[in-house]
């Protein structure tokens, strides 16, 4: 190896030594590689963009024990709005589905259902449904109702009455349990249906984490669709502001795949408290009464 004998003498003025180093490669190679990467990226974006449509199971993270979630879907008992919550009931009789229909699992009961639509925004115009949940009504919690022996009563059930009478002739009035339109969902058993919500795992396709849930009831007894709102109408109040009456807000948390429901209306400033975690604070919808 040839070695130059270079002696560097220190002077008071010089503080830098510049040593030129020759390069034997083409610096433009890096640019070429970058172009190739850009090329690959453009091809991928244009002919085969990868969009992740995988869904994940989101579970409610409510305030109650065992993270149960409660819905209370109430039918109007009065023909006109009263503004009073007590004038609504979780009883299908008010929409033409009688106790014998429920007990005998008639078609008008088992083919009726609630439908929750989840909108991307609370605006009533230009809005669109991102997903829906069908809620079969045979999953409702049981309520005790008197067995009617009155032919004029729509809930008249002579057979059940005779059976009860045969069992205990002195026990009248007699009662049986029928499903109500109150619902309690948990992570185990029959009540697991609709407890979990399947939604997009990642936010690449739809970045929204907030959706606005409305409720409708499809009545197989009458063929009607009953619209539900989040609070009782006041007297003669038929024109409703959608943002104020139609929705509960659901928020998905992709960090732990959970969701929570919140009140959403004018009186809570569109930023209401969490609901659904206890029987005292269910997700409550009441039937809209048409004029």
């Amino acid at each position: 190896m040839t070695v130059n004998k270079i002696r560097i003498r220190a002077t008071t003025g010089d503080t830098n030594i510049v040593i030129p180093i020759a390069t034997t490669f083409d610096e433009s190679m890096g640019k070429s590689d970058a172009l190739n990467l850009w090329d690959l990226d453009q091809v991928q974006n244009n002919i085969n963009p990868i969009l992740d449509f995988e869904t994940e199971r989101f579970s409610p993270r409510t305030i109650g024990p065992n993270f149960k979630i409660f819905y209370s879907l109430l039918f109007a008992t009065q023909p006109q709005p009263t503004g009073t919550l007590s004038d609504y009931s979780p009883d299908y009789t008010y929409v033409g589905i009688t106790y014998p229909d429920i007990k005998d699992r008639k078609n008008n009961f088992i083919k009726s259902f609630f439908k929750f639509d989840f909108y991307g925004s609370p605006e009533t115009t230009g809005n669109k449904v991102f997903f829906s949940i069908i809620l079969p009504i045979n999953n409702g919690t049981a309520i005790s109702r008197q067995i009617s022996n009155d032919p004029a009563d729509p809930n008249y059930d002579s057979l059940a009455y005779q059976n009860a009478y045969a069992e205990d002739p002195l026990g009248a009035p007699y009662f049986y349990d029928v499903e109500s339109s109150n619902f309690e969902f948990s992570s185990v058993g029959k009540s697991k249906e609709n407890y979990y919500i399947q939604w997009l795992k990642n936010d690449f396709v739809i970045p929204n984490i907030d959706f606005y849930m409305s409720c409708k009831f499809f009545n197989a007894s009458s063929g009607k669709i009953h619209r539900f709102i989040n609070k009782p109408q006041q007297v003669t109040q038929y024109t409703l502001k959608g943002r104020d009456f139609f929705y509960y807000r659901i928020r998905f948390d992709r960090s732990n795949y959970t969701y929570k429901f919140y009140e959403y209306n004018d009186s809570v400033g569109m930023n209401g408290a969490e609901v659904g975690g206890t029987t005292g604070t269910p997700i409550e919808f009441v039937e809209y009464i048409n004029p």
Partner: protein
Amino acid sequence: MSYTEPIRIVRGSQKYQGALDKDVVISQTLETTTRDVLEGERNAVVNLNEQYFLEKEECTSYRPYGKISPLVDNTISGDVKDSKMLGYWTYYYPPTPLATETQAPGYPAISFFDFFTPTGMTNLHGYSEPTSYKGNWKIYQSYVVSGNTKVNMEYYTNQPTDDGVGFNSGDGIPFSVSGVTINGKEALQFICPVEHGLLNGEYIVLQNSVTVFPIGTTNLITQINGSSQVPIFSFGNEEYGNEKKTFNVLLREPTAGWTDGDVGVFKRLSDPDNSGETTSRYYVHTHKLLTDVEDSVIDRAAFELGVYTKRQRYYRDDQSPPFGSGHTVVKNQTESYLWNFNKDLDVGGYLNNLNMPLSNIYITVLVGNEPRVWRTSDPSNPNVTTAGIGWSWNFKPDGYIDLYPANNYEQLFTPNTIPKKGDNFLGAFVEYNEFELKERTISDIFHRLTFNSNMMDDGGDVIREGYFYPPHHTIPIRKYSQSIMTYKDYRFVPPHAIFSTYDNLWRWRTIYEIGFFDEEDNGVEYPFVNGYHYTYKNINFFIKPELLDKSFLTDGIIGPLESDDCE
């Protein structure tokens, strides 16, 4: 830039007096500061198939999912002492105990083995509905991060006298010997509890280290014919089908240095001229958990039940101690569950114990023991592990026993401490031959469960019998080629190539593309959508009873009835 000075061209004879004319050439060089763009650089070929293939091959993200069915024969009974377990979750045997009893013999309900726990099943069961599918078992993802050569092992050859050999996992494969005559020649027969992995023409290297020692009255064999390196003569004996566990070595001095039943440990050597690279290494896998228990999702596979008959019985109030509450108990039933993970797995940054890209990921199932029906640590004895470990030769009920629970290497303290991401657990006992670039599983690892004597005991003693299960379940994500590639220049070999000083070449096995099979099962194929690989695994999760020296049938299926259920 133009030349600024004026240029005059004159003939030579006019330059000065006497000058001659001559040809003058002014060369004009053409320098370019740009480069023509080639055709291939101006146009990109857009081919969807190629693009999909490229993305699939380069993707390292996985979403494993599948089904798991716990399969157990619920055969071990005991005296149940926990009142809640006794009242509702015990299959009484013999049946019809008095309702006033506070303790009764029977089998634990199948729910103690199932993935789903319907309610709190013992007084110590900290039950909650959202975690009810993870009470008995916890599911994780894991990969093999390293090999452990220091795991203590024991191999017992004779149960009554407890003769055997103790060794470390790095020492090799244990054996016992027996003198035989083959074609008139004296030979020594080596009997192994596992497949020896030897081939024709190969050698064994007998081990003689401080970690290898005889147990009981046996002697340790460290040399044969005066050498620790011995050629194999033949395989098997007069019994059918044991060639993979038995081999023979010819003796020069038939009676020297050994007696029947002596023990030892050997390593496999395929080429004595290259003993450094062809002597197998032995170790136990160490698995690192890649997920937390919250990352797994377990749910029922609809209404799927196994093929085995459901066995259940209803007990009336007067047959149901200690609460006198009539109830039904299921003793045997097989249900199926679906599993997946809500955290995606990117294996791009991981290398396995051999510094190679991952070819397998594992689904690791660990006992959760929330009902505490299995022995676990408590304040008085905090070092007791929930599940000990054992190997395929430890749990044989026909005589070869393991002194469990002396071998507590597995520090599993559920339910008091729940394993989390990053925790390490031992895995399979394997052999690796550096020249062959191949790892062979000698024995899977098993976890052994012992009944908690506070819940069930055997007349006041701990129930010796228990259950064992395999914790790690392989999901192959890539396969390596059967053939070995070689090349001399390091610049053209993959990063996982190994340099052989013997033949002075880099050696490696090629990683096959997804979808390519070189034979029936050497290859992988799984869907690639959403930018992820979806690998499916159907796990038959066998929970087997370890019955030791007890009669296998304790259920009275054939024996005479002690009482009629209808009475």
